[in-house]
């Protein structure tokens, strides 16, 4: 990056007439601006590194007392009990189950919404609908949590009478609704970026609107749509308040969404609300859990990057 800029500077310096090239003050100013811009860009990078470093440092302390084998194969997570067990699997199961339920709602609904808004809705409908949809993003997640607990769960209990008050199904469903605008918005932007000439080509072949949307626009926007899904997965895996409130905080090794269970995030928020002494194993356990969460999100992001690269479109 830097070398590229230097090369560019050199190249332009060669072409500029000597009368103009002598401007040292302008050069200096440019350098300062470049430096400020670089610092701004690096601040985010440094923050990320700092977070990773702290996660690693505290987790290291944790893993001095708990073996990796116990951490990944144990089926009980009770770090705060007298009889402490440190198996992360119940938390991972909770996280995956709630995320799966959420995505099962958000991916189809979000994609269909994006297709509708981009390809079918009139200009007026779109101008009204999109801001309302994006308003959903601004609703505090705690509100969604209580919506799940106090409205959706009683509703579901009418269909499934045995459903417990805290369950992953209700939390996942509401989380899915919460994520719909993310998918719809990003995917719609990707579809609208598909050039009109491509749509015209499809219509000129006698295709209908629906055929054009499904067979031409959607494949052309694949990389953007995948980006939307990845964003949604990261949101779902990292979501805290909805699951902490509505899914219960009892670690429970199950993939059955009709049961209650704690997710990684729910555990972190639960422990963080109590007052544990620093450097205690309970305190360190939230960093170990956080590290797992970080690695999970990282894996999804890398996967998304690979898929996007594969489907990068050259229109």
């Amino acid at each position: 990056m830097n070398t590229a800029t230097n090369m560019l500077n050199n190249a332009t310096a060669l072409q500029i007439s000597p009368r103009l090239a002598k401007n040292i003050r302008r050069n200096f100013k440019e350098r300062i601006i470049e430096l400020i811009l670089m610092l701004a860009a690096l601040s985010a990078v440094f923050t990320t590194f700092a977070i990773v470093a702290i996660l690693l440092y505290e987790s290291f302390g944790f893993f001095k007392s708990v073996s990796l084998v116990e951490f990944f194969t144990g089926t009980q997570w009770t770090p705060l009990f007298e009889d402490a067990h440190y198996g992360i699997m119940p938390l991972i199961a909770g996280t995956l189950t709630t995320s799966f339920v959420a995505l099962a709602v958000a991916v189809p609904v979000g994609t269909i919404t994006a297709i509708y808004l981009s390809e079918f809705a009139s200009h007026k409908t779109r101008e009204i609908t999109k801001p309302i949809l994006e308003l959903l993003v601004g609703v505090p997640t705690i509100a969604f949590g209580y919506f799940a607990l106090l409205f959706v769960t009683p509703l579901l209990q009418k269909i499934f009478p045995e459903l417990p008050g805290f369950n992953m199904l209700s939390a996942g469903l509401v989380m899915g609704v919460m994520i719909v605008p993310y998918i719809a918005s990003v995917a719609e932007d990707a579809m609208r970026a598909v050039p009109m000439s491509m749509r015209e080509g499809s219509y000129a072949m006698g295709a209908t609107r629906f055929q054009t949307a499904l067979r031409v626009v959607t494949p052309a926007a694949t990389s953007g749509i995948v980006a939307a899904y990845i964003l949604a997965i990261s949101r779902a895996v990292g979501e805290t308040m909805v699951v902490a409130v509505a899914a219960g905080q009892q670690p429970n090794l199950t993939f059955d969404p009709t049961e209650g269970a704690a997710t990684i995030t729910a555990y972190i928020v639960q422990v963080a609300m109590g007052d544990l002494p620093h450097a205690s194993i309970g305190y360190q356990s939230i960093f170990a859990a956080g590290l797992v969460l970080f690695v999970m999100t990282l894996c999804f992001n890398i996967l998304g990057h690979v898929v996007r690269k594969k489907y990068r479109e050259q229109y």
Partner: protein
Amino acid sequence: MVNTSTPLKAESKDLNFYYANGHQALKSVSMPLYENKITALIGPSGCGKSTFLRCFNRMHDLYPGNKYEGQIVMHPDNTNVLAAGVDPIEVRMRISMVFQKPNPFPKTIFENVAYGLRVRDEKNKRVVADKVEEALKGAALWNEVKDRLNDLAFNLSGGQQQRLCIARALATDPEIMLFDEPTSALDPIATANIEELMSELKNKLTILVVTHNMQQAARVSDFTAYMYLGEMIEYGDTDVIFTRPTRKETEDYITGKFG
């Protein structure tokens, strides 16, 4: 001279066209389209030639608020393609189009050509494969791509992409093919290929082509129409238009004094 024995394939009659903003882009345009002939539309930018071309397959329907008046009648069945009861999709099945910039779909070479058959729900794999091969041969592209039909269409060169778009338009056996400045994004060799292809295609179908390039109109077309400010100024045999135009405006444009 207009050969009276040549059958009419289509004709526009007193065609007016208004864009959604109220601008009248075509003013009472009447023009015949003779079967198995190439008709070229020439004129300065903004004269309405592309607008006119896009009336034939009702491309303007894609954008709300556009309005047609008058008729474009197809022969021998006397269908007015602009009539309210006529389905634009039916029209586009009979009249296909090649665009200014090659616009292949994000699909394989094979699937690009098969697209028209797929949207018509052709399920028979044999039929699809045969039609695709035939269309690619018709577009003089078969020999270059027959070993990589499953490659993405974007990997082809610009000229190949444009021939792919012609193959795509050809695969559904249209009666008329519209070309909207088909070579303006191509280099001279690719342009020559496309022109040669057009001359071959006219044995099978009727061609209407918009071009900015006067030499191209003179080289490939049988009839030429000169348009200016939405009006049809002059229409006639290409040889006549380019050697003894009757209207002063046509002569000025062709000789480069104007436009």
